């Protein structure tokens, strides 16, 4: 509990990384309550996306500063140019592709159906017929449940939105919801942290994840990001980072499938096609 620690704690949220020079510093928005992708432990930003961004910054000689914001604020903040890029486990979706530009995707995710460990229910019980399901508001899982279950005649489920998955799971454990639908990484994180939850089913999504910049890439960051992603993938640094946080995760080939609704995946892709 030294003064130095206190000083570090004070600047957490404004920690600067990358090469120290007079060059421009880019502000990377993160939601630091999203392990294993981005979180804060003892005042330091950690996670796959954070470490990978640090490696990319070093590889591409960028100055990047992380700024933590709650999840619902992140995409609006990027769309408005309050931050320069978004570094988290961000799913590539058509709606988001309208307002931001994605880097080449570096991950693919499925969704898992979590129930309380002592719940006797199976995946049909918790996704149908009067069940209540929790998900993070604004997340792809929320949108998927809304579109495929809530809005479908005869399914009859209630969907509850939460600010983050920790509270969604907490609410499920108190018995107010029957299940929580979250990404594979997050689900495994809950289990490895010893939360009394179990997976009763997987929704195969092959959902690509990527970094994002402002629409039209006004800061001309995409080429550096794409080049950096490929470089850290090829050097093996990416695999090392992923396995530091998720030892069992299987590494996908980068880039993973690139959906054609994303403008920034049209040839030539900056920093990748050349």
């Amino acid at each position, binding site marked *: *509990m*030294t003064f130095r*620690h*206190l000083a*570090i*704690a*004070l600047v*957490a*949220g404004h920690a600067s990384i990358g090469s120290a020079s007079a060059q421009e510093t880019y502000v990377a928005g993160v939601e*630091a*309550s*999203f*392990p294993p992708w981005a*979180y*804060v*432990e*003892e*005042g330091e930003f*950690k996670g796959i996306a954070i470490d990978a961004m640090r490696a990319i910054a070093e590889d591409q000689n960028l100055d990047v500063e992380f*700024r*933590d*914001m*709650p999840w619902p*604020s992140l995409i*609006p*903040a990027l769309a*408005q*140019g*309050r931050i320069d890029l978004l570094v988290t486990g961000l799913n590539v979706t058509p709606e988001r592709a309208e307002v931001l530009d994605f880097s080449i995707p570096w991950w693919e995710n499925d969704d898992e159906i979590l129930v309380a460990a002592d719940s006797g229910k199976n995946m049909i019980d918790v996704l149908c017929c009067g069940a209540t399901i929790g998900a993070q508001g604004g997340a792809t899982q929320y949108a998927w449940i809304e579109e495929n279950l809530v809005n479908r005649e005869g399914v009859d489920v209630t969907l509850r939105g939460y600010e*983050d998955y*920790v*509270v969604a*799971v*907490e609410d499920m454990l108190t018995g107010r919801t029957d299940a929580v639908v979250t990404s594979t990484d997050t689900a495994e*994180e*809950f289990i490895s*942290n010893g*939360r009394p939850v179990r997976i009763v089913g997987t929704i195969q999504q092959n959902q690509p994840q990527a970094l994002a910049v402002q629409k039209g890439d006004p800061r001309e960051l995409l080429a550096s990001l794409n080049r950096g992603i490929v470089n850290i993938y090829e050097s093996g640094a990416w695999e090392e980072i992923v396995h530091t946080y998720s030892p069992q995760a299987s590494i996908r080939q980068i880039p993973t499938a690139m959906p054609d609704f994303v403008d920034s995946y049209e040839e030539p892709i900056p920093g990748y096609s050349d």
Partner: protein
Amino acid sequence: MIFEIIINHIPYLLGGLWVAIQLLACVLVIGFVFGLLLALAEVYGHWSLRWSGIAFERVFRGIPELVLILMCFYGVGNWFPIDPFPAAVLALGLRSTAYQSQIFRGVIQAVPTGQVAAARAIGMSGVQAVCHVVLPQALRQVPGPWSNEFSSELKATSLAYVIGVVELTRQGKYIISSTQGNILIVFAVVALLYFVVNWLGNRVIYRAERALEIPGLERGEGD
């Protein structure tokens, strides 16, 4: 195990508390200065000043703090970029100005108007009467009602995390998300820290209240 984690995180929680206290200090100073000016304008100003003061105060007392914070960060940020901390200071400062103006208006109006008339009768100007007769008495009545404002603004600083100010509440959330749980115990520690600051702050204010009491108008203890 969670206790060990919390103990390791105490410096960061205290760091978050320090950010909250800085935010609180900025907000209260802004509120004090502009609240006093607004109150003087409302009581003694030309009718146009009076009405704009009242309009300002009605508007900013009538909007939830959270909405104000989001408006300052995203709304104002549309025209000129503003960082999270100054945005929070601006939003809560406007609100505190509106509330403190009502505290000051109350204490100024509590000074009998006859005193101003008497001051004018012995040759003081209007400004002199306010500065030498009204304010010295009025400001000494401020600490009581002001302790409410202190407490409510301290608690309002916790809202600033929504725009990315890493204060105490956000530091607490970091522990919750990195351990994927422990909501009750972590927020209990956070609550305790807020409580202690609130309690200490109020003790200081009550002490000031007693020290500043106007002889003959004491709050009468034990009688």
